[in-house]
Each structure stands twice: as C-alpha cells, then as structure tokens.
C-alpha cells in the first residue's frame, strides 16, 4: 500500500541479484550477495540494514555499476545498471566522502556540476544554494577539502550528491562520522528530500537513524534478505496497547488498572516516559546557544 507522496512506480527493481567475489584464478572466494530481489517505489525512503559484511554496500555498488553482478538483473529508473545515462538522475553519497582533496568546496561542486548538462550560471547558483543547505560556513568554502573535518567533508559530500537535483538519492552510511547536530541535520535533509518527492535509498547499521527516517527497510544477513517491510508495521507490537496521557495521580492509576483488569487484560508496565539522549543533547546545545554561560543540568538534579 502506498503512502501519501509515494506511488506504485518502481524506481529500483532488483531480481535474483547475486555477487560472488573470485580470486585471481577465477575461483569463488566469497558469496557477498545471494539471490536478492527487491522493489523500491518512487517517493519512499528505503533503508538497507544489516551488520558489517551483510552485503549492504555491495548491493549499493552493484546498483551504481561499480561492481558487476554474477547473476541477476537490475533496473534503475527504467534502465540497466550498466547504462551510464541513468546517472543523470541519480545522486550518490559514498560511505566515506571520497572527494578530490585538493579542490575547495566551490571547485568541487563546479567540477561535479560540469559532469551534468548544467550551464555555468546554474552551477554557480545551485552550488551556493547547496552549500547553504548543508550549512558549510562561508569562510570554509575557499579552503581545500584536505583541511576539512570529517563532518565538513560529509556535508560537501552531500552537496555533490545533490548537485544535479536527482530523482533518486543513494546514501551509504549517511550519518557515519557526524556529531548529533550533523546527524539531525542529515535526517532532516532526508525527510526534506522525501517531501520533495525524491526516492532515497540508504544503507546504515545505525538502527535509530533508519527508524527515524525510513518508510521501508530490508534487513540483510550473510548476503541474504531476511526481512523486508514497512518500518511501522514491522515494529508494531500486535498484542499490546499503549495509552499516553499527562501525569496522573496514584489514585487515578489504580482506577485505570482496575478498568483494565475488568476487561480481562493485564497491566504490564506503568512508568513515566523518558526522552531519548539525542533529544536531550539537541535541547542542551540549543539552550546553550541561547543562554551562554548558564549551566543547564547538574548531577542528580535537572536545572533545565
């Protein structure tokens, strides 16, 4: 069933995809991917999950034509993976930002822009817009990338992936190496891309990130597809019900427990909800910016 903003049109179709790495003599060494089949629909954010060595990055590189499949077929945007013209509509952010370290931010985006059919004025305008979007400080834009921190390199990597305003964005470990602020920016960016109707395929082993942004996920293990489906459906506990209210008195809690028992159900847990660490971190940083010098949290006592 498609969600709002999504369609049934397949952007990526993978059928029986297998990749076997061979040694110098052509003998099979590792079966990195085994008979993977999946469809990724237009407008959805799809997550490929799995532990290290499960075949996530191999899948991505097969889709991009960096590796050749041993068996199986790949169709991306209606074209075979080996067809270079498909890249006109694809943006790719590699796991590490493998960019040219001797270029500065402007030169990097201009170079990648020239690989597309983009006139100089459009390239310049789009580069500025993207550098603003990824929040790269103006004073850093004229420095060579070899002087950048990992987070800054990641930001310029994202900008180059979006230089052609792609319909399909492939992100390999998009949040790796980012601090929580950068992490949140990246997730906001992915959700923003989704809002623009773009399809996003991301690989990650950071489960919380995937849960926050993905519509559907596939979990790979040992090169095989183990689970695939909508995130909310896969995570939904079918035999439990959760009710969230403002803070209740102990008497009110007892009354509610009595009502639940009257209907033949058991109360499993009564607790106060806690924020996650990311939310706390972001809130702390934001308030620190607004009130410099003020200590927000003391041990054992919330000052916020």
């Amino acid at each position, binding site marked *: 069933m498609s969600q709002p903003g999504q369609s049934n049109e397949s952007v990526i179709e993978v059928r029986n995809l297998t990749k076997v790495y061979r040694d110098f003599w052509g003998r099979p060494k590792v079966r990195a991917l085994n008979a993977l089949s999946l469809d990724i629909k237009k407008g959805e954010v799809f997550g490929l999950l799995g532990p290290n060595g499960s075949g996530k990055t191999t899948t991505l590189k097969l889709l991009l034509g*960096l*590796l050749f499949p041993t068996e199986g077929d790949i169709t991306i945007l209606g074209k075979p993976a080996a067809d270079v013209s498909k890249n006109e509509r694809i943006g790719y952010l*590699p796991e590490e930002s*493998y*960019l040219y370290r001797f270029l500065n931010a402007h030169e990097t985006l201009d170079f*990648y822009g020239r690989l597309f059919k983009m006139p100089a004025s459009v390239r310049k305008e789009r580069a500025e817009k993207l550098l603003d979007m990824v929040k790269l400080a103006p004073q850093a834009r004229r420095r060579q990338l070899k002087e950048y921190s990992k987070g800054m390199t990641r930001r310029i990597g994202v900008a*180059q992936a979006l230089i052609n305003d792609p319909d399909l964005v492939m992100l390999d470990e998009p949040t790796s190496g980012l601090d929580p602020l950068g992490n949140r920016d990246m997730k906001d960016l992915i959700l923003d891309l989704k809002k623009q109707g773009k399809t996003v395929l991301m690989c990650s082993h950071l489960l919380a990130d995937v849960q926050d942004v993905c519509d559907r996920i596939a979990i790979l293990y040992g090169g095989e597809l183990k689970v695939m489906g909508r995130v909310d459906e896969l995570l939904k506990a079918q035999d439990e019900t959760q009710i969230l209210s403002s803070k209740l008195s102990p008497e009110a809690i007892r009354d509610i427990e009595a009502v639940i028992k009257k209907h033949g159900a058991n109360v499993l847990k009564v607790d106060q909800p806690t924020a996650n660490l990311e939310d706390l971190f972001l809130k702390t940083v934001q308030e620190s910016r607004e009130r410099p010098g003020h200590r927000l949290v003391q041990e054992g006592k919330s000052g916020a």
Partner: protein
Amino acid sequence: MSFDPHPLLIWFQKLPNGGYLLGAIPVWFIIAGGLALLVLSVSAVSVFVTHRGAGGKLFLRELSGCISDVLSLSPRRIGALAKLTFLEAYRRKALAVFVVFALLFMFAGWFMGDSKEITNDQVKVYISFVLRAISWLVLPVVLVLSCFGIPEDIRLRSLHTVVTKPARRLEIVLGRVIGFSLIGTVVLLVMSSVGYIWIVRQIPKTAKDQGLLSCRVPVYGSLTFLDRAGTPADKGINTGDLWEFRSYIEGATAARAIWTFKNMDASALDSEGNLHLENQFTAFRSYKGDMKRQLLFDFKFINPEKPIAPNQPLTFTTDARQVNEFRGVTDKINRKLGREGDEKTYDLIDDFVMKDGSLIVEVSCIDREQYLGMARPDLFVRRPDQPFYIGYAKAVLGIELLLILVTIMSVTASTFLKGPIAAVLTSCLLMLGGEDSHNFMDELVFGKFKGGGFLESIYRIITHMNPTTDLPDNPAFVGMRFFDAGLTNFLWLCKQVIPRLQYFNMSDYVSNGFDVPWDASVVPSILVTLGYLVPCVLLGYFALRIRELESK
C-alpha cells in the same frame, strides 16, 4: 653533418626504414584492427565461458554500450576532467620541477666554456644542453604524473564519485590525457622560453653577426654518379672509408657527382640574386702530397631541355673552387652567369631550371691527387635563412609531441596496471622506441641473424651445430621451425606497437644550425602521435569499462 633527413610525405617514395607511407596506412589499419579484433574475441570467449547461455546477450549489450559511449562523448565533461587533472598536478607541486630547472641554468654557464671566444661547436653545445635538459626534466615528470593519476583515483575511490555521474570511461581517459598534456605543455613553454633567452644571452653579438646562431633552410637533392669513364653509376669509388654513406670521385677524370634539386625557382635566391650552394666534401689522397692542400673542384649547371647541339645540353661551368676540408662552405653564385672576356651570359633560373623545377648541378674534382668524397647531404641549396627561433620552436614542438605520446601511453597503461608497473612499462616502451632498438628488432624479425629462431638456435647451441649447416628435414624440425616462425610473427606484432621515436628528436637539426624540415621530422612526429592516440585511448577505455572499480 651527421644526419641525412629524408622526406616522409612523398607518395610512393621509399623511406629510410624500407617502408612506404602508402604502405604504412594499411599496416596501421591491420595492426589497430587486428588488436581490436583480438580484444573483442578474448572478451567474447570470456563472457561466454563465465555467463554461458546469457553470454551472447551480455556481450551484445556491452558492445552497444561501448558504441553509445563513443557517440555520446561530451567536450564539456572532458574539459571538466582535464581541468581537474591540471589542478591536481598543479596543487601536488608538479611545478617544483622548475626549481631543478632554475638550478641547472644558474650554474650551467660555469661548466660550458668561455663565452668571449665562442665557436660553432660551443653554440651547438648550448642549444643541445637546453633542449636535452628540458626533455629530461619534463618527460619524467609527465610520465610519473600520468602513470599514477588513475590508479590513485581508484585507490582513494575518488573515481567512484565521477563514474556515478554521467561521465563515460572514455571521457575519463581523454580528460586525463588532455589534462596531463596541458600541465606538461605549460612547464615546457616556460622552460623553453627561459632556455631561448638563456641561449641568446650566452652567445655574444659578434658570434651572432658571424651567423653562428643560424637556422639554415637546406634543399637537398638526389645524388647520382658518373664513373671515371663517364658512365652512369649508383655510387662513386669505394676508398674503404665509410662506404655505406659516402663514395668518391677521382680527380682529373670524367668522374662526376650529379645532384638534382627539385622545386627550384627565384625564391631560392637571396635579395641580391645569389644562389647559395653549401658544400662539405671530404678528400682521399691517392699518394703522398700536401695533406694541407685545399680541395679543388668546380660546379657545372646543366639543362638537357636546352641543347645547344644534338646530344649536347646547355652547360655552364663555374670557376674552380678551393675550400678547406671538414668545414661547411657556402658558395654564392649570382644568377647572372658569365665569364670575363666572354660576352655570352646566362640566367641561372631562366636558363638552367627545367620545366619541372629541377636544377642539375654536376661536381667534378680537378686535382688529380685527390678523390672527392660525396654523400647526399654534402651539397645542398641554402634557401634564405629563417630566424633562429623558428627552428628552436620546431624542436620544442618535437618535445611537446613526445610529451603527448608519453602521456597517452602512460594513461593507457595506468588503466589496467598499478602506477609503478605502468611507469616501468612506459619507460621500457620509450627505451625500445629508439632507432637502434628498432634496427635490432628489424634484424631479428627479418631473419638477418644466422642460426635460426628461438628453438632452432637453442638446438644449434646444445648440439654445437654450425649456423650455416642445414637442419635435418624431419617432422620434429618442421614443427620447430613452425614454432619459431609463429614467435617471429608475434615479435613483428610487438615491434609494430612500439613507437618509432627517432622522428621526435629535432634538437640535432637546430643545434647543427638547420631548420627542422616539416616533411622529414615534424609531420612524421605528428602522424606517429595521432597513430597511437586512437588505439591507446580506446584500449584504456575498454580496460576501464571491463574493470570493477571497487575491486582491490
């Protein structure tokens, strides 16, 4: 003169290496086409072996992909990749080579003689030094840069961000070739400009006024002989010295050396109407005499199209010339030919240049104690000189063309080899491309060595068999000869893919005070470069296309 330039671009004319230009074109197609067919066959077989039933479809899809890539080349993308390559080399301090260059020129004057007493040989040394220093500095830098460019891109995976854009592999190869050639060109232009200024400043005005910094434009003719009885002959007399290059005419006999110069007209004369005939003959003396005596000879102009009597062409013989041996001498002969006391005069151009533009000059030795040694380049018409910078610029163009060829070969090698191996391969090809290496390979391929091929020579060594003894005629030896013939053919193919680099060295012309001839050196160098550009770039493209860039 140590060289004898033969024009290449004369249709059907035999070249010094034994080939013909018209023959070279089909050979190029045979070699390039044969290699392409070999690559396609190997690819097809490997695809069918690895993919069995689906192999045919896959092969056709890849083939159509290759054709599509070639047809959809984008100059903008190639330009972007070339600019990237240029910036990469520039920011990785490739221009540090200028420091070495500057050091060389700061101290070179210390070791190159006193500039107050400059001679022709010293001018030659200055020019050779500058052009060789530039070649030896620029070429290794470009070779190393271009051999390591693509392998480093693959190792650091920066190429991933390029190939996942609409950049074709062919564009990547072309962009690299153009980028590295550009950086080499910039370095070359700066160095050659500095070198030119250095040469001009090192040579004093007095030496320049003597014409030591010249750029002579020679017109070489063809040479035939008459023997001492006046009978036509291909060569003169063998005095046992340098027979292959130079032969001799005997003094005070009917022996003659006859040069025929083509394309002669009034433009060959200087502003005063003089024809400059430059000669550098040698002498062999028949018996004891004055070794210091000068050479004695005369010139005779002949026009068979204007007979003055049956079987008697129009002729004019100049006064006897007396010149020193081993020194180039320029004779100025005015177009108004005449003798004192003789009212009859001739016009050199109107009366002696034939309808097809040929001018026949006959040389005879007058001294009966001398034999005059002649070779084709020992007499030439010297057209008005060009400024020195013209010849110098052509020599620099020769280095530039070699630089482009080195870049093409290095980038191609780097698409399927790691950087250091690609550098070794390209260096080997450059070493094998020399004239001596090609001559040696010719001797091997055309069976000029006695003793047979690989297996046959081993057999002869082991059995102590004389190389002139025939081998027994049984199936084992027939098989051995068949194997040797196959190996020889393979060696022939290898020889064809090694570039012939002799044309690219134009510094000898300039350092000897000559202009660089377009037809004997510049055009052949351009043709060789173009001849390698297309197949090498396609090979590099194919190697990148079939390669999994992610694989280690």
